[in-house]
């Protein structure tokens, strides 16, 4: 276990970041902190994916000097996946932020538990 962890320290970092983001998204009461947690969680997955696409000693997959051997280049697909993922996470962050603004305008607080309590009192 130990040697694997040190050899793949970057992947281990990604997983630790995932847990941090996950816990923040789930346990924080403040909506903005929840959204920060969401972004940490998503970024960690992209870090993991980007790491897995990189192969030490190889270069970007752009053909120069006529080298067409696949041995010379890294895998470009994870980079494409990361870009797609970033677009998705930007849009969900924007949506979450807009929801947060609406809730803040109504209840003047960012604490989700307090909002739930006030809603129960209103008895809508």
């Amino acid at each position, binding site marked *: 276990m130990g040697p694997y962890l040190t050899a793949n320290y970057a992947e281990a970092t990604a997983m630790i970041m*995932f847990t941090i*983001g*996950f816990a923040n*998204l*789930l346990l924080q009461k403040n*909506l903005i902190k*929840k959204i920060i947690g*969401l972004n940490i*969680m*998503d970024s960690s*997955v992209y870090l*993991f*994916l980007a790491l*897995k696409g990189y192969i030490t000693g190889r270069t970007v997959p752009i053909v120069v000097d006529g080298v067409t051997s696949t041995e010379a280049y890294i895998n470009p*697909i*994870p980079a494409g*996946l990361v870009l*797609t*993922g970033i677009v*998705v996470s930007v*849009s*969900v962050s924007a*949506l*979450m932020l807009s*929801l*947060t603004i*609406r*809730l803040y305008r*109504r*209840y003047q607080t960012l604490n*989700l538990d307090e*909002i*739930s309590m*006030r*809603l129960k009192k*209103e008895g*809508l």
Partner: protein
Amino acid sequence: MEMVRNIPFFSIMLAMFSGPVCSVLPGKVARKVNAAVITVVMIMSAVLLRYLVINGESFVYMMGHFPAPWGNEIRAGVLEAGMAMFFCIIMLLSVSGGIKKLYDEVVESKHNLYYVLVGLMLSSLLALVYTNDLFTAYVFVEINTISACGLIMIRENGRTIEAAVRYMIMSLIGSAMILLGICVLYDITGHLLMSNIKESVEVLVSGGRYPEPLLCVVALMSVGLAIKCALFPFHAWLPDAYGYSTVSSAAILSSLVSKGYIFLLIKIIYRVIGFDIYRNSGVIDVLFIFGLAGMIFGSVSAIRENDIRRMIAYSSVAQIGYIFMGIGMGTQFGMVAAIFHMLSHASTKSLLFISAIGLTDVSDGSRKFGPLTGSGYRNRIAGIAFAVGALSMVGVPLFSGFISKLLFAEAAVNLTGRMLPVLIVLGISTILNAIYFMKTVIRIYTPVDDSPYPHVHMRQVPLYAAVLVVFVILNVTLGVMSDFITGLISTGLEMFS
């Protein structure tokens, strides 16, 4: 290539582009465009289903110019085409049934935006059904989440926004887990297309390589999708989201959104991981136990509820539990029963939501059981439809719910070890279902003298009445023609592998 093979691609694109088109149209026109698009997709899916049944084999449709290991693909079989057609029917009925309420609850300038969301939702469901590429599936899972969030909060008040936030939090956790699962799976197999992954996974398993990462992948994807379709311990967001959104949204969310995710899970089980490998992982036992627990606790929560909409919402938790129990049985019979219950629950739950709104409307808009007393007499068609839905959920013969319970029981009898828990929990859950649904039906048919609330006649709400009648017919059709439908499901499942 025959024209009919283009249908999956065209249905996804048609549904997707109907969204942006509706955003610039006035509300009334947008409604017509939306209904037309759903109807066209429904007819096209029916044609495709007929072609596939006659032809007897599934086909793969290449997206773009790159062949299998690199390009993107769509795949259509009997089960996919049938699901697409069924989703369109339920979508059309749910939107038409709740349209009056939607216009009451939402400001007029936002009416056309609802159809944008419905179009996006339909296209993402179709893409989840048809896609053969895991990363495409992830992207459409996110599109589905975003449009579901919009559907919840289109009726803008504090409750729905809070429900939408809670829905988003749970859903985003689910989709991050799915994404991580897909990443790890890509790393150990090197593929994103389902059929290629399956081949690689088989090689990995037979060589005994990467057992732990593979188990992680299975667990991450299953739990991620289970969170998104509100399996028992992850259902906290569900009652508010279904209970306070506008009625069409509640019907669409409960009967289609969760079913789209379950269908994706079934596809992952059969076409990505492989049924036998999935069964031998411990994850299937976890789903089985959560399913059983959900059947009991969902019903108990429903009994304790004093709000008809939230009661129906909690009943969804129990029904999702049934479906996961069927998947968790780990046999072909269990899977057929689970898929039949998906259809049965989709048609019944949307019927219940739509008919409940007719009952609350003739009770001064109150959803508590007190004012609802006798509402079955004030709006007869809604009362009858609610009673049909309730009987079907309890499992009375002739209706679809009976057949799904029968199929679950039959599937359990062939099973050693899991027969007893399934039959016992099925029995308890049926009794609990009967308690809260019969309580409601008796309540709405208890006569009250000189009620202060108005009566609504069928002729005053022709579209609403027609939708309810079609729902009842659909429900009875599923119940009566069950042999034919289970036959189609089995054919479809065989085409999967």
